[in-house]
């Protein structure tokens, strides 16, 4: 009965483009957004916007990359994964350990590890007490490689094991959620030498650049923007390819696909691995901009929030996924602050009420999310024209 989800069309199907004028509006809008994103660092350089605004945009763009991956597996392939947060954290931890090596040291080991080190450090000084999984993240290039490969590998294990034994739908969601919770507990333990609940901190430099330098912050933003555009384009190609059509087929009728001689599990696992790698990449981009990585990213609420981003943005549209991540995070940020417009005072502790209502409304009234709303609006404008 739960399989009903798989069969009903979700999101906007590709190719359903609404006439020339609508597509022109879309293009113009995308162009304007892109121009703004490129202009943002210059504005910051000129002092019009704060460098922290750029930093915030950079972080949210990194989260947008996670949303892209999740959209591929959920929106296109119909697999609701609740462990993207785990892959994100894996990438984040890879980068975190690398940054900790460059950060402040005590007794020869990174400060944040020193504080929670489970054994007495005094006797054997320095690097020899560092476990192997700290040492491999010392070289920068290897870190980048591993930060993408490890999430991919873990995703492969979960994907192949799960999809071959045909774990489906809600079962897969709950299984991945349980895995993320188990991983969080594992990372939180001090004796795992992953810095416990305090996470990895005390970063100073990345590849020789001071992290607190405004130019480095802008640089990180630019790198994130490039990664976002790059991954967006790759995803676009992927969805337009034959592979992408198979994914849609998996979502709409896996059984039929199997009868047609395909092996759905291979396609599912492949896209799951790809999404895992994207999340890992996002984690690596996020960590130096946030200055900390903690196990709390693997809490249940993060996994669910990531799905909410895609749902609000509009599943099945790449643009919607990214937009959802950005919009929800901006709203979340704005609503947890205190502000007033005229005589209206916003109280920060009301945010769950409004955000919660918003989630409900979007799901009920806008099943295609913001992207669907946008499409309708543009369609109307185009008609008027």
């Amino acid at each position, binding site marked *: 009965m739960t399989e009903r989800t798989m069969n009903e069309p979700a999101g906007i199907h590709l190719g359903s483009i609404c006439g020339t004028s609508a597509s022109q509006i879309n293009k113009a809008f995308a162009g304007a957004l892109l121009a703004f994103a490129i202009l943002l660092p210059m504005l910051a350089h000129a002092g019009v916007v704060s460098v922290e605004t750029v930093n915030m945009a950079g972080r949210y763009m990194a989260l947008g990359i996670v949303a892209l991956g999740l959209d591929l597996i959920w929106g296109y392939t119909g697999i609701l994964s609740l462990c993207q947060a785990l892959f994100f954290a894996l990438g984040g931890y890879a980068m975190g350990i690398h940054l900790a090596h460059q950060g402040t040291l005590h007794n020869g080991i990174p400060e944040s590890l020193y504080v*929670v080190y489970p054994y007495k450090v005094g006797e054997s000084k320095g690097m020899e007490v560092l476990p192997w999984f700290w040492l491999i993240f010392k070289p920068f290039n290897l870190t980048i490689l591993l930060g993408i490969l490890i999430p991919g590998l873990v995703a492969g294990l979960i994907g192949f094991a799960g999809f071959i034994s045909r774990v489906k739908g809600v079962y897969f969601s709950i299984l991945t959620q349980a895995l993320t919770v188990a991983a969080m507990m594992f990372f939180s333990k001090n004796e795992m030498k992953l810095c*416990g*609940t305090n996470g990895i*901190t005390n*970063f100073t430099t990345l590849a020789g650049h001071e992290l607190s330098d405004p130019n480095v912050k802008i640089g990180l933003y630019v790198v994130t923007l490039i990664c976002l555009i790059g991954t967006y384009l790759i995803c676009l190609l992927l969805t337009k390819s034959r592979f992408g059509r198979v994914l849609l087929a998996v979502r709409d009728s896996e059984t039929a696909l199997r009868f047609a001689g395909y092996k759905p599990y291979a396609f599912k696992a492949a896209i799951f691995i790809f999404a895992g790698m994207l999340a890992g990449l996002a984690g690596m981009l996020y960590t130096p901009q946030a200055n900390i990585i903690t196990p*709390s990213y693997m809490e249940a609420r993060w996994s669910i929030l990531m799905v909410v981003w895609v749902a609000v943005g509009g599943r099945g549209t790449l643009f919607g996924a990214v937009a959802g991540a950005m919009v929800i995070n901006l709203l979340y940020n704005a609503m947890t602050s205190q502000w007033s417009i005229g005589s209206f005072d916003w109280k920060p502790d009301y945010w769950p009420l409004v955000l919660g209502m918003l989630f409900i409304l979007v799901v009920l009234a806008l099943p295609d999310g913001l992207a669907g709303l946008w499409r309708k609006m543009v369609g109307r404008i185009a008609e008027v024209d």
Partner: protein
Amino acid sequence: MIRKHFIKTSAIALGCMGLAGAAQAEETIKIGVLHSLSGTMAISETSLKDVVLMAVEELNAAGGVLGKQVEAVVVDPASDWPLFNEKAKELITKENVAVTFGCWTSVSRKSVLPVYEEYNALLFYPVQYEGEEQSLNVVYTGASPNQQLIPAAEYMMKEMGCTKFYLLGTDYVFPRTANKVLKAYLKSVGVADEDIIEEYTPFHHQDYQTIVAKIKKFGASGDACVLSTINGDSNVPFYKEFANQGLTSDLCPIMAFSVAEDELRAMDVQPLVGHLAAWNYFQSIDTKENKEFVKAFKKYCADNGLPGGMDRVTDDPIEAAYFGVKGWAMACEKAGSVDVDAVREAIYGMEFSAPGGAKKFHETNQHTYKPVLVGEIMKDGQFKIVWETEGLVEPDSYSKLLHTDGNFPAPTGGPKK
């Protein structure tokens, strides 16, 4: 009336250009309040927000700081560590606050620390923590381990005659480090390895049956005690189970490091009566200053319609948050400005009076000299003070027990070179 309206409209007009903040900043001093008002930590942190706002109200009633009114900017970091970091940036760069009062958990402090060091801003941190940190951008008004753990362990040994110790905590950094310090201390005074048991439970653990059975066995000889660093909502099931399995404070006393009046307010206190807690302040401290403070806080909560109203209580972190604000204001007056470097210099060695009695900021390490008190839980959810140190205890930033070689790291942060 007309003027107020004018200000309002002009504020709206200027708001878009971001000039409203600048115009106001000339008249008032802004301070940030960074405590979770939603999510899992709201349970503890909302009270700190309340008392900080009360202290601000008192400051303003007494003429403000340096002749200017103080304006509190409240944000809700929602028990979400990355959001703590974002909110700290917002307070510093967008709101231009002179100082921030905030954080409860160590991870939230660790999360905002780079921001405060990068911008050389100032954070007052009001909660007891695991130590092993000294940033020039943080003033620690809570206890460091040697101001809570060691005196309490000493008390259990000397006054209660305990020889066996069950170190029980929630599995995160504070209990882990606290127990590391405790173990080092206990061993240094000759407690054998097999007489110390360390045990951890996950966050929000609710089922203490097995562990209490273990404690029962461990304490069968009648000279054991529990040193508990159990956090938050796990305390209720632990104490309930303890009582239900027939253990009492006579047979095996529990010394808690994370249970204060505010937590007791929310508990069925009956099973806890007679157990102990170590803090630097109790609501039951019998001085005129403290009574006035307690009264003022209750009244503030009732007047502002906060949940709990007159039933609200004060406790150690609440006092620390309160005297943090007052201490900061005093340091500003002393320095003649709200500039972070000037205030920091003014703070070193500054003596001041707090609700729980006179206290003093440390001469060099940004922590606070505090007395240590041991209290016995009474049936009304208050503590009966049964023991206290003579005078104030000097705070350690890095524990001498863990750095036996005397090699202490240098403080981090501070003025930009």
